């Protein structure tokens, strides 16, 4: 499945939730879709799932527009943080409904996951706690086996153990049947290891699209004396600098080996930190 996004715009009145975003993704990978609140992540996911039409530009899945296009939307399953399901339905009824809409629906997996998350098939959606409803969303998302599965903060209300279990199940299912999983979360540190590629949105624009391995190779945190760090970062793109008692730490686009050779203390930059500084408008240029 190939997703091509070209100058995509979504406006609500004067406000532009998406402001000319362009990128393409095609491989079955786990993509981290990151950004601060209001960055346009959910809007993008809704457009991708054909739930809302775009205002301008285009989004094509295998060359086709998703809005009201069964050929596309039957291959996309979007699970959001809440309000995914009708409150009056029982879980078993919901699973049956899903089986009509997702061509690759795996009922056996759905029932296994229902057991794993200790849900009852006869329970109504409205009786579920927030965490249980999230578990149901995850179950539907994984059992849909949709070639494009999109999770938007899927584990609201789930405790740490349940989230860990979710990550393990996600990886297991992804390993068994690789597909394009787009994962948006604010618990970036927790989920960072899952991501194979990261897209960062800020104020309706794409500020970064990079493979995580490459990101780890090309960025690092360097610490040393102010003179050492200033000398090393000269001419390089710096995301952040902080200074304390004659020592300086900088997040910089540079190779770790190169920094190491300069006698600096080198560490990787957590993706969460990258996101914060890329979307916090605190780059050196901005400062």
């Amino acid at each position, binding site marked *: 499945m190939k997703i091509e996004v070209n100058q995509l715009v979504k406006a609500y009145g004067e406000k532009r939730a998406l402001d000319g975003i362009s990128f393409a993704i095609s491989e079955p990978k786990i993509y981290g879709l990151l950004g601060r609140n209001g960055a346009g992540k959910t809007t993008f996911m809704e457009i991708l799932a054909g739930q809302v039409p775009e205002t301008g530009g285009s989004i094509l899945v295998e060359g086709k527009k998703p809005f009201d296009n069964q050929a596309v939307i039957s291959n996309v399953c979007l699970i959001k943080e809440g309000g995914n399901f009708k409150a009056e339905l029982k879980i078993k009824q919901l699973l049956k*409904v899903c089986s*009509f809409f997702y061509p690759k629906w795996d009922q056996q997996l759905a029932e296994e996951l229902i057991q794993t998350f200790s849900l009852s098939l006869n329970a109504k959606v409205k009786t579920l706690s927030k965490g249980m409803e999230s578990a149901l969303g995850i179950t539907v998302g994984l059992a849909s086996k949709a070639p494009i599965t999109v999770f938007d903060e899927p584990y609201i209300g789930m405790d740490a153990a349940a989230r860990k279990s979710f990550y393990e199940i996600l990886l297991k299912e992804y390993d068994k049947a690789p597909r394009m999983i787009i994962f948006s979360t604010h618990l970036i540190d927790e989920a960072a290891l899952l991501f194979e590629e990261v897209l960062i949105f800020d104020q309706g624009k794409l500020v970064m699209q990079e493979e995580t391995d490459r990101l780890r190779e090309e960025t690092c945190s360097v610490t040393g004396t102010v003179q050492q760090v200033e000398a090393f970062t000269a001419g390089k793109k710096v995301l952040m600098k902080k200074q304390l008692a004659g020592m300086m730490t900088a997040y910089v686009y540079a190779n770790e080996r190169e920094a190491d050779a300069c006698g600096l203390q080198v560490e990787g930059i957590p993706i969460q930190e990258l996101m914060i500084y890329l979307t916090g408008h605190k780059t050196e240029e901005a400062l």
Partner: protein
Amino acid sequence: MGKQVRGLLYLFATDSRRSIITFWIIFLSTMALSLFAAALFNSPNMRMFFWLPMPLYIYCGVFGFIMAKQAIPFSIKIGATRKSIFTTVILFFAGLAVLESLLINCVDILIGNLVSAVKLTSFHVMHPFEQIGPNWLSTVLIDSVVLFFLLTSLFAFGLLFYRYGLIGGGSLSGLVLVFLIIAGGKGWITDFGSFVYRTLSLTTFLYLFGIAIIVYGLSWLLLRRAAISKPV
């Protein structure tokens, strides 16, 4: 599209079951209570009239209106196309109208027989269109058409609120209200009402069915670009 339509029919039927059962429980309980009261105070000086399908007409109108708000977002979220929703809603409404009409007319027969059996002279079951229905089947047909009209037209009205919110829906409601006040003041409504009453026949309900189809067809203009919640 066939599989989506089947899925949506299953969804609508499952989701509506509780509401429909609740209505019938309340309706039948009220009927039973009324019958009991009529039997208790049975006297030649007392008359109790029950316009049998009226509560059902009101229920179906409300059902159609709410359906727009409740069924569309989830159907879109689950991956249904607008065409599938449009097709399924009309099929569901047609089925529901016929089923409800059959039920209400069966209740009519049951109550009629019961009232005769116990010689309950003070209790009268009435039907707003009883003078034109030559037989039971035609009354079923008439009720089906009226219910179908109410379901589809109120669905279209609900869709207007869904797409354009309180401002859009409220503005149209205001315009309709102003028109009704003017029409009432000029006597157009009473003229039209008496004209319809004079010419009321099975053909009238054929026209009503046609109007329902046209109104529902027009609702496609609102549905075809409907999004999950935010106005487009």
